[in-house]
């Protein structure tokens, strides 16, 4: 294997692609958690998004409908979670776990007829530049629009939370729902919106897997990425930019360790497979050491049930 410049460019491009579903799902979950809601159903919502996107693509032969449909399916399934936790006041953790189990089961059932059907090429942008620009070509160009969106999203999220009124309201609700309610903010509505937003992005993350990253339907194809996204949010201490860093590290080392296995490094395979998890945690813990900042970013009411006095 030659480590020439163009190979490194391609490698970086593939690392970026592999981190997209994590960025999307984690950015969505981040907003949900910032409003004080702990939704452990990320994996379930992603897999539902993956099968809905793929099935719609096969049925309608229209990628646009498939992408929108996958997001809507994420929204719908998160609405179940929202209704249970916000309107019926069920426990966030148990409901989220149930949602994941439900999502995996439902997707396997819906997906039976779609196994083995080949996917479709997803349009990529600037494909000519990818070939003509050396090194940066494969990094910057020739990706799907979803990838560009994913890499801008953490910055938008950060801007939303820090600079906009709505972002302020989301943070306020996550900090103290009782105070927010006493200020006349409709806590339940805000939390519903954040849950649905998170659901939509998880659906999109799933569709990215089944339509773009490995264009086909395989049962249980999210393979734990939802859980990684959840962990990223916590280890990144609810900071969108750190989520991006964490997702890239995780994606990067996942890809790198495959290459290392292929080259035949004399390191046990099990260790290589564990490496992405290990490194991501180490890096995120190191960059999030400031206990003061953690306190300011952590949604104080996370996972606690809120109900309005009558």
């Amino acid at each position, binding site marked *: 294997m030659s480590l020439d410049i163009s190979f490194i460019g391609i490698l970086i491009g593939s690392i970026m692609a592999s981190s997209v579903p994590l960025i999307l799902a984690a950015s969505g979950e981040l907003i949900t958690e910032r409003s004080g809601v702990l939704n452990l159903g990320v994996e379930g919502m992603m897999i539902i998004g993956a099968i809905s996107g793929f099935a719609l693509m096969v049925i309608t032969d229209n990628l646009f409908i498939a992408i929108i449909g996958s997001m809507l399916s994420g929204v719908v399934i998160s609405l179940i979670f929202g209704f249970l936790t916000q309107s019926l006041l069920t426990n966030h953790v148990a409901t989220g776990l149930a949602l994941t189990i439900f999502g995996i089961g439902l997707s396997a059932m819906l997906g039976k007829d779609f196994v083995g059907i080949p996917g479709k090429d997803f349009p990529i942008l600037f494909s000519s530049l990818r070939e003509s620009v050396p090194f940066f070509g494969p990094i910057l160009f020739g990706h799907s629009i979803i990838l560009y969106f994913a890499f801008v999203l953490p910055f938008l999220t950060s801007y939303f939370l820090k600079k906009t009124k709505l972002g*302020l309201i989301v*943070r*306020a609700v996550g900090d103290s729902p009782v105070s927010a309610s006493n200020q006349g903010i409709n806590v339940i509505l805000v939390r519903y919106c954040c849950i649905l937003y998170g659901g939509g992005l998880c659906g999109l993350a799933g569709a990215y897997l089944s339509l773009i990253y490995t264009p086909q339907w395989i049962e249980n194809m999210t393979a734990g990425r939802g859980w990684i996204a959840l962990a990223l949010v916590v280890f990144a201490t609810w900071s969108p930019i750190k989520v991006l860093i964490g997702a890239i590290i995780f994606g990067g080392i996942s890809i790198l360790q495959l290459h290392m296995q292929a080259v035949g490094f004399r390191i046990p395979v099990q260790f290589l497979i564990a490496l992405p998890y290990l490194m991501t945690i180490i890096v995120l813990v190191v960059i999030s050491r400031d*206990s003061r900042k953690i306190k300011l970013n952590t949604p104080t009411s996370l996972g606690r049930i809120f109900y309005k006095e009558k």
Partner: protein
Amino acid sequence: MATDLRISNISKIYPGCVANDNVSLQFKSGKIYALLGENGAGKSTLVKILSGVISPDNGEVFLNEKNLKLSSPLDAKKNKIGMVFQHFNLFETLSVFENLSIDATEDNKSLRVRINEILKKYNFNIDLDVPVLNLSAGQKQKVEIIRCLLRSPKVLIMDEPTSVLTEQETEELFISLKKFCDEGILIIYITHKLKEVLSLCDEVAVMRKGKVVSVSQTQNEKVETLANKMVGQKLAKIKKKINFSKNKDEIFKVKHLNFYSDDPFETNLVNLNFSVKKGECLGIAGISGNGQNELFQILSGEIITPNTSIIFRNKEIAKLNPKQRREYLMAFSPEDRISQAAVPELKIYENVALNNFKSSNFFEKGLVNERKIKEHSKKILSDFSVNTDNVELKSQFLSGGNLQKLILGRELITAPELLICYNPTWGLDVGAINYIHETLIKINDQEKSTILISTDTEELLKLSDRIAVIYKGKLSKIMPSDEVTPEKLGILMGGGSID
């Protein structure tokens, strides 16, 4: 423009409790009104109704003869009713400015200008860009007041505003409130502190068990008359004989107590040294958040600090955990009854069993000896006049006063040599406070010692033989309490010096 607020026949019934029973009151601007009552008298329910947090089952509210429909806090805001709750409605992790801007309708620039005008006008000194969790309780309250003022309120309701303030801060607050009143804002001041009513308010309405029992001019009232109206019976006066004597044995001695924490919510303690004599009550005053929590936890053994020496009855106990310290006859009553002293979901007798001793035989061969625990619990309930004899009752259904009696009873029934308590009467009503003060004095009379960490200066002056003040983790010199005045304490609590 004059404001006239009228409450007419308000009733609110919760399962098993009539919180407001046909309450009618009338308020006019230009005066400060007190709403006085014990805990559970229905004051908080009434103000929650006025601020739209809850809606009444019956009755109406009129502002300038306009019938108000207050079904959400927004309605109260729109009708220019401002409210400062006892438990602040602030977002701790957001900055002061973010807290104020969250419900503002104008853009940030003009809002900042308006806030600065208010800060200047009322002489408030607050940095707008720090997170609220960095502020003192007094500053947080000012943020709440500014939030109300930004909406140019006609009515300002203050719910137990001084429970977290120092004497100085209280004085400042009173000056501000009088200013607001002169500017035509109608002020309703809710409290159970009688002296405040007399020094601040023009008219006072007393509530008891959900009903208004009296409305009168404060100039016609005295502390005793108001107390009797509030409680519905005559209260005995408590006075302690100070028994500070130099030649008694030291039973408890702390040397080189240092504590360092990375947590921004915790206070570091710097070289604390003190001792307690037999039969003495050592009071430790201070505004909450100056290290009392940490001190209590170190004294009780929840936190073990290196290089500290704690001698108790001639034994070194600095390395022992709370259970081991209890075996040496220490007892503890933490500040937070619900989360630290008792488990609210457990029954009374189970809570009693939590405090088990080797000698108590509550557990035999790993099994719970229920009969024994229940007998023991019944004795506590009757000895400490807890208002129930049902040991199967879940502790969360006890009122604050009864729960505190239960906790003190649990601690004291083993006849400890030293009781360490932290804000034992916090949030309790006059009757319960009286009982607990009597109990604490009785302990000293029996030649047992107490350390009383409290934020209530009046309580400290009443019960302590010697007093020290803790400020930012440092302890002042220890003074005999007959040489101490509330003013002196206030200066020390605010970080000043009296020499």
